[in-house]
């Protein structure tokens, strides 16, 4: 594998994995907060939180710039107090990918938590557990398969992130240029050989991840059924 192809691959994996972790933490927490009961308020909240999936990535990128940019609410505050700017950094790419992937894990997690037998959760309550411990010891272990499936979708989405990342982090070779950005860059520059190599790497990585995911989901199946 050519050395100049490894850098975008490693960057892609780093950004996508961190973005998935970030999206999973928030997706699981908010999925639990939205809860089992359906109501106009909860369903509206879920619809609004699903927007990043529906909107064009450029719209997402625009709003992230408005928020994180030097003159943005959060960006200005970070700059002023910590001297941090997320624009044109790989950390900015993580945030863009995490926001884009978040709705997938949120929906999967909420559905998985709703599928847990409420009576089993009630049993844990009568046995003396508070809501947080109940979540860790009962709900999460019973819903993890659905959560993991959502996390894999989120990872796939984060790996392929292009539009929002380009707007927030740019396409700086070696710094923020992930595989999908590097492929676009190579094609635009007329470097067919490089584009072909990068596309192949992208394809192989995705297939390997898919197979690993299938293995993980199968191995985790409780032997005695649940």
């Amino acid at each position, binding site marked *: 594998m050519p050395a100049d192809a490894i850098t975008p691959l490693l960057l892609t994996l780093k950004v996508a994995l961190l973005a998935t972790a970030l999206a999973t933490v928030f997706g699981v927490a908010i999925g639990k907060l939205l809860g089992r009961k359906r109501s106009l308020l909860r369903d509206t909240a879920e619809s609004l939180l699903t927007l990043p999936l529906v909107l064009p990535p450029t719209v997402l990128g625009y709003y992230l710039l408005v928020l994180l940019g030097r003159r943005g609410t959060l960006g200005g505050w970070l700059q002023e107090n910590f001297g941090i700017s997320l624009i044109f950094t790989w950390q900015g790419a993580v945030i863009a990918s995490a926001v884009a992937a978040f709705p997938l894990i949120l929906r999967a997690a909420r559905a998985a938590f709703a599928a847990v037998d409420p009576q089993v959760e*009630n*049993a*844990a309550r009568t046995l*003396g557990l508070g809501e947080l411990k109940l979540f860790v010891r009962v709900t999460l272990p*019973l819903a993890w398969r659905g959560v993991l499936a959502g996390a894999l979708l989120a990872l796939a989405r984060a790996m392929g992130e292009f539009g929002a990342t380009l707007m927030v982090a740019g396409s700086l070779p070696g710094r923020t240029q992930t595989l999908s950005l590097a492929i676009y860059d190579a094609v635009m520059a007329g470097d067919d050989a490089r584009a072909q190599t990068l596309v192949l790497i992208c394809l192989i990585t995705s297939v390997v991840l898919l197979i690993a995911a299938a293995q993980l989901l199968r191995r985790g199946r409780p032997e005695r059924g649940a």
Partner: protein
Amino acid sequence: MKGVSLAIEKRLHADRRTFDLAVRFESAAQVTVLFGPSGAGKTLTLHAIAGLLRPDRGEIRIDDRVVFSSAQRIDIAARQRGIGFVFQDYALFPHLTVAQNVAFGLQRGWFNAGTRAVRCEQLAPFDLQPLAHAYPADLSGGQRQRVALARALAGQPRLLLLDEPFASLDAPLRTRMRSELLALRHRHDVPMIVITHDPDDVAALGGQVINLDNGRVVG
């Protein structure tokens, strides 16, 4: 006064229908049977006593301790009521072994006890030792019920609630489990409230019978 006294009201909405629960009774008996047809509000009443359903109005006392009172704004959480509950379908934790299920309430930490590490003295009295490492899906109906009973009694509750404990058992097993339950009551000396819609259960269990119909105590 020992025993349970309750006077509660709760309005529930489901599919544009409303159901009004307005139950009032007192019982100092060792065995109290809530008897009535399905849909009478038996399970709702039991859940209210356990703290799993919050009444709109009223008061619930267990052994003179007020666990719920709308007037005094008291609503003790289910986990602090010290009540053992045997659910209708037993509601065992499917991801935990028999030993882990029974010991669940004894460990108050953030993690479940390891499958091998868990030690539980509560298994022997219920003949569950050979099944300690089995999962609920592998158990027969009678075995599941024993696990549910052992789990509910492990924390030495001051009241045991049982929701249709025999409904999913076949007739011969039902007879056996009834006598096991009565033997258990003597051994643990814990008062119990049992839900049933089967007159044979009422005859076998004895004690005070509360008839429920359409959300109210009748007769």
